[in-house]
């Protein structure tokens, strides 16, 4: 306790010994020094713990901030881009959508059920904090291969947690994706996107404004769960994590979450709420400091007024607890009782826990003692960390083993990526709120919006760690294009992207390079498509004892469907199978390469943004005009898998003749932006003229027929001839039961 200038008043709070605790708090020695230099004194232990959380990678984006600036964030209709609780985009008729995705990877590794459940709870509160009613969820999941019992148990827990929370609060989970890789075995990925709907004149923001306003704590009580969760999310998991880091995982209460949604929407209806923020990562401290920093004001918190569910909680526990189902509202003193009454009617707590000041300080009092006194913007602006990126060399090409096409196709259909996901999405209520027009299992889910009828929204979430492992730039770019293709297949015009960037430790120069290249790929693709990135998050340190995860940027895209009321065309037996778009037929990064080659290695031909854009416009227009009965993009498993999936959706066989040689590349290559369409012969001319207008290659591959699936080459040599029943059995084999 030496050499402290300007020591703030405090009682019962130890002053951290100079220099020593940096390692224990998660701050680097340089960061600890920066804190001292800015304060011109040593922080006390409560302040130090605040810095440890607020300056964690999870809260502060220390490594990613500079790189993320490359993303396009503006566009027509964007009312709110990154930097708030969620993005907001106008959709017409006085309405806006709210869009945000977040990861909950580390908590799900330690406690799959609660980790995933609170991931849902957290993202829903972000959307709610913009004033919106949450209307849909998407989940993007990754875990170890499912032949391993531990991975199955993890996946079952994660799916159970999403179902347990999402179903209970009445927000439908309308789509998602699943991929496996040994790298995700100890560090699964749980990325959840939430869509909300808000009137444009009811959008609120997370700002503590004006001075003199009060901070109203609303929701569930504060306990000791999730303390330091944000810091925990910013470190590498080790073997002991499953047992030792449980206290860092929050426990959700969906019942309180549901009441919090309804009460908060009713509170907002009163028009007396000046600002809202959810208390998520970093708890009360992070919420209050961020709200003050955004508004360029200050806050004083009265910690002893925070409703607690445990006795004798220390000041830092009250400040940093990540207990769930809590919001922080800003309102004027005379409106407190009106808002508090709304929350109490729903059985929730509502207490004034502080006030807004004009001095730019973040202060907290506990039993009349000042325990924290810091500049708010110091807490919310951690110094950036710089890493010199080192490129990862291209992997050496490796030859594929010769595998019979039928055998390969059946095995690919049974992979976690391709197999039918009904065992997962049937555990989710995907219909509540009576908006779901296109249910899970298709390229994109479609929701109707009676608010702006006959329009609706299409949603999709996509990621591909394999493509990005082979080529981070091209893989990320192709990921965005795939999301756009999924929307085009639903006839939707893309409006906004939110992303979760899941990577290993950014302190590794090669990981950092991979991250930066992936962000460039997303940026270039979004710019070409004219879609803004309105929010998202970065999740680093995704590695287990066995090593890092595949680089996995995940992209969730939402788009506007002009008319969801027209009934889709019913396919007939003579309908044609038509391919729009063309591509090189390399196997780089493909599911085939993973299953049948010794590595993902053999090259990845980047999609051409110009030709891809034209293909997507053509598909979108064809779907909107009902010129096609079904459109489905070529992705995991290549053209062969896309054709089979069309047949399985329509429950009809097909006879297909490929124009070129029927090799593994032609059947299973995943490159380029290509879409398979099912077209009535009467509509073929219209589709051909659309393709000509957009300058998109079109080839008629075959037609629907009977109950067998056949693929032959131009020489009429048959490569695949399987019954639809056999294909369906392979496709319905997703093993995600615990045990």
């Amino acid at each position, binding site marked *: 306790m030496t050499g402290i200038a300007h020591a703030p008043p405090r009682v019962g709070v130890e002053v951290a010994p100079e220099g020593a605790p940096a390692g224990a708090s998660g701050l680097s020695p340089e960061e600890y020094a920066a804190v001292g230099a800015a304060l011109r004194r040593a922080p006390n232990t409560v302040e130090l713990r605040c810095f440890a959380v607020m300056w964690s990678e999870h809260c502060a984006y220390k490594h990613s901030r500079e790189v993320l600036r490359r993303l396009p964030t503006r566009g027509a209709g964007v009312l709110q881009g990154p930097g708030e609780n969620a993005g907001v985009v106008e959709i017409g008729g006085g309405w806006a959508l709210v869009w945000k995705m977040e990861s909950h990877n580390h908590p799900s590794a330690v406690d799959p059920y609660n980790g995933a459940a609170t991931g849902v709870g957290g993202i829903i509160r972000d959307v709610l904090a913009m004033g919106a009613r949450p209307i849909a969820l998407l989940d993007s999941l990754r875990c170890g291969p499912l032949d391993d019992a531990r991975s199955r148990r993890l996946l079952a827990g994660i799916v159970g947690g999403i*179902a347990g929370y999402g*179903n*209970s*609060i*009445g927000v439908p989970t309308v789509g998602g994706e699943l991929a496996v890789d040994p790298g995700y075995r100890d560090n699964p990925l749980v990325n959840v996107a939430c869509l909300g709907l808000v009137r444009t004149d009811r959008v609120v923001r997370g700002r503590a404004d004006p001075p003199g306003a009060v901070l109203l704590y609303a929701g569930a009580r504060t306990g000791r769960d999730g303390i330091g969760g944000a810091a925990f999310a910013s470190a590498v998991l080790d073997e002991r994590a499953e047992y030792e880091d449980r206290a860092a995982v929050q426990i959700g*209460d*969906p*019942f*309180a979450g*549901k*009441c919090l949604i309804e009460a908060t929407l009713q509170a907002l209806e009163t028009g007396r709420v000046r600002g809202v923020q959810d208390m998520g990562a970093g708890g009360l401290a992070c919420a209050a400091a961020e709200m003050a920093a955004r508004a360029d004001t200050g806050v004083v918190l009265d910690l002893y007024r925070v409703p607690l569910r445990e006795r004798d909680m220390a000041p830092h526990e009250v400040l940093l607890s990540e207990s769930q189902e809590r919001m922080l509202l800003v309102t004027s003193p005379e409106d407190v009782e009106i808002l508090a009454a709304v929350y109490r009617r*729903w*059985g929730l707590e509502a207490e004034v826990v502080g006030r807004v000041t004009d001095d730019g300080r973040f202060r907290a009092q506990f039993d009349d003692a000042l325990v924290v006194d810091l500049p708010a913007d110091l807490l919310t602006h951690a110094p950036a960390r710089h890493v010199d990126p080192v490129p990862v060399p291209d992997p050496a090409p490796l030859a594929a083993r010769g595998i019979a096409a039928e055998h390969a196709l059946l095995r690919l259909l049974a992979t976690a990526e391709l197999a039918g996901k*009904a065992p997962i*999405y*049937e*555990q*989710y*209520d*995907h*219909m*509540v*709120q*009576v908006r*779901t*027009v296109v249910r899970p299992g298709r390229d994109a889910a479609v929701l*109707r919006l*009676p608010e702006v009828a006959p329009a609706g929204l299409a949603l999709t979430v996509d990621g591909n760690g394999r493509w990005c492992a082979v080529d981070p730039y091209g893989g990320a770019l192709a990921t965005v294009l795939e999301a756009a293709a999924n929307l085009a297949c639903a006839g939707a015009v893309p409006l906004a992207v939110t992303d979760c960037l899941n990577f290993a430790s950014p302190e590794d120069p090669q990981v950092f390079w991979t991250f930066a290249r992936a962000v460039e790929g997303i940026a270039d693709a979004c710019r070409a498509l004219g879609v803004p990135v309105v929010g998202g998050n970065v999740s680093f340190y995704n590695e287990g004892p066995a090593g890092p995860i595949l680089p996995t940027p995940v992209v969730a895209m939402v788009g506007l469907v002009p008319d*969801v*009321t027209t*009934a889709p065309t019913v396919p007939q037996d003579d309908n044609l199978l038509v391919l729009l778009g063309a591509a090189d037929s390399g196997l780089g990064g493909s599911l085939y390469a993973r299953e049948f080659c010794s590595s993902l290695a053999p090259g990845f031909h980047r999609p051409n943004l110009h030709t891809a854009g034209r293909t997507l416009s053509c598909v979108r227009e064809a779907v909107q005009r009902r010129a096609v009965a079904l459109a489905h993009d070529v992705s995991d498993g290549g053209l062969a898998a896309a054709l089979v999936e069309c047949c399985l959706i329509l429950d009809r066989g097909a006879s297909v003749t490929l124009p070129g040689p029927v090799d593994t590349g032609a059947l299973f290559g995943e490159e380029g932006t290509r879409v398979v369409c099912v077209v009535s012969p009467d509509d073929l001319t219209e589709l051909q003229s659309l393709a000509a207008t957009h300058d998109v290659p079109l080839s008629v591959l075959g037609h629907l027929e009977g109950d067998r699936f056949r693929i032959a080459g131009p020489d009429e040599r048959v490569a695949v001839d399987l019954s639809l029943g056999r294909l369906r059995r392979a496709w319905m084999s997703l093993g995600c039961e615990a045990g």
Partner: protein
Amino acid sequence: MIWGVVTFPGSNCDRDCVHVLRHVLAQDVREVWHEERSLSGLDAVVLPGGFSYGDYLRAGAIAATAPVMDAVRTAAGRGVPVLGICNGFQILTEAGLLPGTLLRNRHLRFICRDVSVRVESARTPFTQRLDNGAVLRMPIAHAEGRYTASPDVLRLLESKRQVVFRYCDPDGQVLPAANPNGAARAIAGVCNRAGNVVGLMPHPERSAEGPLGSTDGRQIFESVLLAIAGVR
């Protein structure tokens, strides 16, 4: 006529029911809070689906003791049509207004998908417009939907025509494969002795509009309109 839709904390299909009644069927709807003690003036009452009180203790167990349930009991006694959907069905059994109980699904998981049910008793106000044997396509979304009662009660239900809906295949055949949750005798819905209180696990409010895939559920609400018109 005026419908009442009850909201318990944790109900999550209340707004969907209000939407269908108000906007699809052009009915007057009163939104009833769980603490209300009177339902006078209402011609029919809906207990919607959801997770009332988080389904803590047992699904529907806490809601069954809410103040509004006394009023529901009184209204039911007067012959007012009462419909419990999903969690509403669970609440009605917990409150003793309907016989039997709903256990965890056979596979212990939540299930959300379309099912077919066969109308077994057209004597209730909610099925009066339908024929015995008619097949309706509606979604289910529940973790606790396995209907169970003692053998005596099950026999009585059959003999008094209190089984209202049974899970079946799209052709109306009651087969084990068409029973999604292991319900005794494939029971998807039952009524009280008088027939005016009906509970069912499928969601008619989710199958009342074409764009959502089925309009079969609408007939359940429309039946009541006919029933009330007949009374007056």
